[in-house]
């Protein structure tokens, strides 16, 4: 397998030339492959992409996100999902197939300002994202602290196979729900653990581009350092 090559790029930088496949945040101009955003470029298996360090959340099918109810019609709720689009959750998804607008009151289940963990069921360019809560661990979030970080740094917070988030959860005994849209809910019985967890998440947000971040977070949380060799994650 080819080794991945990483570089810091800004829009317009030529990442490579030759027969490569352009993926996220790059485009092809002749035989040059050029970055379209500020980030870290990766060449892997003949594919070239850039992991952005800035930008808003673009919904993707199957993403777990956290949304805030901003209103409802008689058939669906509308969610602020920290994106340029509004998320829609059909009433049938919550009430079941025999939902009737005359009988059921949407407000009783979810009201303005409620936070909900949901999954993006469907999204394309022609319509606003459709959400669903029909899965394990999805639905209304009853308690916890909402933290907003930059959506481009969510993969870093999760870490390689969840290493970063496991580290934080273990050290602080907090429950952390991460939405791909950069909204995170932390809940904990122990107020100190809660504050520690929030601090750690903020630290990841601020230092996402630094190497050995897991080590830094570990030493901040007071966990003994392992030989977990962490690199910048996709």
């Amino acid at each position, binding site marked *: 397998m080819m080794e991945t090559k990483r570089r810091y790029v800004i829009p*317009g930088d030529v990442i490579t030339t030759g027969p490569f496949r352009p993926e996220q*945040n790059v485009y092809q101009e002749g035989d040059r492959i050029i970055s379209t*955003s*500020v980030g870290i470029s990766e060449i892997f298996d003949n594919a070239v992409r850039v992991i952005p360090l*800035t930008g808003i959340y673009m919904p993707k099918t199957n993403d777990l996100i956290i949304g805030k109810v901003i209103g409802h019609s008689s058939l669906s709720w509308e969610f602020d999902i920290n994106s340029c689009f509004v998320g829609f959750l059909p009433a049938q998804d919550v009430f079941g197939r025999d939902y009737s607008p005359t009988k059921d009151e949407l407000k009783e289940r979810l009201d303005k300002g409620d936070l909900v963990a949901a999954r993006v069921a469907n999204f394309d360019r022609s319509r606003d994202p459709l959400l669903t809560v029909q899965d394990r661990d999805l639905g209304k979030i009853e308690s916890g602290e909402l933290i907003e970080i930059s959506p481009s740094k969510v993969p870093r917070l999760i870490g390689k196979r969840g290493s970063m988030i496991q580290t934080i959860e273990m050290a602080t005994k907090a429950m952390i729900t991460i939405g791909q849209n950069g909204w995170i809910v932390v809940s904990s019985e122990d107020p100190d653990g809660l504050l520690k967890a929030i601090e750690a998440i903020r630290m990841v947000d601020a230092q996402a581009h630094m190497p050995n971040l897991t080590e830094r977070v570990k030493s901040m949380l007071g966990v003994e350092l392992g030989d977990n060799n962490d690199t910048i994650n996709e």
Partner: protein
Amino acid sequence: MTQLMNENGIRCDGRRVDQLRNISIKVGVLKNADGSAYIEFGKNKILAGVFGPRDVHPKHMANQDSGILRCRYHMSPFSVTERKNPAPSRREIEISKVIKEALLPAVILKDFPRTVVDVFIEVLQADGGTRCAALDAASLALADAGIPMRDLVSACAAGKVADQIVLDINNEEDQEGQADMPIAYMPNLGKITLMQLDGILTPAEYQKCVQTGINGCKLVYEIQRKALMDKYFTNEAQ
């Protein structure tokens, strides 16, 4: 009339014919904007902020196939020696339009249908060549906001002063010189996105003027690049 160039080829502000004014740029200066940049281009001081992609208001402006770009260039009342009326003037509306059109080839808005990207440019202090300086700041603010771009846009003026083609016209040279040509350029793609000309040039002078302007844009690009790198990749061995 003041003397614009002395016998040694030194201009009224002490520069050589091919020398830019001092430029300093800082990216990410506004907390509430999605992307921002502040540029000091000689005595010009300009702030640019980018919001979006976000919902379009009024709704009828929205495009179902692609995002749209809106741009507002505004001069503060205190940016010039005589107080400027803060209402948008004919000149500001025109500059807003040309800046928008100069940025449009660089941004990729296909993935953001029904949304808008707003660019706000505030001139805090003006000293000739504000549209170029504003463009430099605006393109960095767009990159800072994470709007996909084909390339950064670098802009710089060239012109004719005392029968010589010079780079980066300042206010005095603009008022009393013979020609002023603002150029915006995408350095990696080698494409011009803005070119205006005020004054009269011969075909040979025109060629030289365009080349001088492009060279200036390339110099500006290096400063822009450094400013953007500084925000995102400091504390790191490049």
